[in-house]
């Protein structure tokens, strides 16, 4: 798992919150699933940008996952403006699942 960030301390808090966001179909959190690529804590504004992907474009559960991710990060950062940016570069594949995620899926 290699999530880019410009603020490791705040990143740790945001990622801890994102661990609570589950992909409802796979029943695995989006961090271990490898959907979260980057967090960007803007210094000149209140914006926190989470750059993430979905397992597939037009994922039927995409809207819920994005909404849940927004709400999850908002909780430890109530005064910030949370923005979720979606990217498909690189597209998600199974190699992005963390070791813990693989362990969960193979159990």
């Amino acid at each position, binding site marked *: 798992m290699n999530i880019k960030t410009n603020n490791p301390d705040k990143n740790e808090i945001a990622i801890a919150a994102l661990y609570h966001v589950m992909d409802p*179909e796979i*029943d695995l959190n989006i961090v271990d699933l490898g959907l979260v690529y980057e967090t960007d804590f803007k210094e000149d504004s209140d914006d926190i940008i989470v750059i993430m992907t979905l397992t597939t*474009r*037009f994922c039927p559960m995409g*809207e819920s996952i994005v909404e849940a991710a927004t*709400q999850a990060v908002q909780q430890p950062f109530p005064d910030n403006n949370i923005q979720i*940016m979606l990217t498909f570069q690189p597209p998600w594949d199974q190699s992005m699942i963390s070791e813990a995620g693989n362990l969960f899926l193979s*159990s």
Partner: protein
Amino acid sequence: MFLAGNNSPIKNTSYKVVLPFYGYAALSFLIATILMLINTSAFTAHYFNPHTLAITHTMALGWGTMIILGASHQLFPVMIEGKLHSNILAYLSFIFAAFGIPLLVFAFYEFNMGLVAKAGSILINLAVISYVLNLSLSIYHSKSRNVHAVFAFTSVLWLFTTTFLGLLLVWNFSSNFLSINSINFLSLHAHLGIIGWFLLMIFGVGSRLIPMFLISKYENKKRLWLIYALINTGLISFIIMFFLSVKVELYFMPTLLIGVSVLLFGNHIYRSYAKRIRKKVDEQVKISMLSVALTMVPVIVLIAIIILFANVNSLQLVMLYGFTIFFGWITTIILGMTFKTLPFIVWNRVYSSIAGLGKTPNPKELFDNKIFIVNGVVYLFGFIIFGLGIVRTNVLFLNIGAVFLLITAVLYNFNVFKILFHKAKLNEYKNK
């Protein structure tokens, strides 16, 4: 990269478009099994009889086609990686079909091929045209034209060919403008639908979804293209042979091509299963995989029909052939895949706005899993007993099998409508 939200370029198809199809299909399945129970004797007669035709069209159009239309409006964007072109065309497709199917089924049941049958088949064709137009424009605007999308798109073209031929046959029953006997064209009409529409669509969607649900590392596009070529070559050669009125034995060739494609697809799914990351496979996917195995049953029955064509008993095999397709293969995949798609669509509708605010139920908790499992067992009993009833021309077996299948439809409807009417327990969230 783009901002997620209401104006996202990857916004999903609205649930309002999709859900009516599921509800309609569930009720059609129930009606088909009721018709079956009160007309079991029809399954001991020649397959060309009003009640069998009515039940077959309820199953093919009301059950199989309606649920595929509904699910594909949701899943087609996943396959082509592009938005559904128009919700209005999707609504039109539903409305035309929703009125057209009962008219056609009623006309068959009463065997009145006049105005009602014509109106029904025109409406069904309008539904299919709306669907073809919607999917064609969606593909035109999308960036990805992969093998799964080609499967699905080709199947849609075959669907139109099927329903248009159906319209001509209905018209021909009363005005005989084709100077042919409509009955002779039934096998062509049926196989355009079974192979061109159902087989291609189910393989196209299944080859995308089943490995996705298993989180499988296996991928083999070349094999999928080969399967695509085999199915279409088989179907086109069948059409040519049909018009050339060749000897029955020659129909082995298209049967063989389709049979090989089914075996290759079964192997493709098996390899996906073997190379899956997700070890725990839920019952819904297991039932869908059983359906892949059941695809081979009609092929075997068809080979038996060709061998025994001169024998009068082959009429019962023809009946068995149709039964294993609509009540076997197609029903099994729908029984499985409904509960792998519908709960997620409804969950999204109910919980997406409150996701992340607290603990939400898992989509799988939107239906009763025990009933789902019992349903699977009851269905298998019904399928086997009714199938035996057809082969042995045994009315008792047919009645018992029909009761089991009716119970299957009741349990299925219970779970489908439990999902459709699911409401969020908002109080739990207000307290958090």
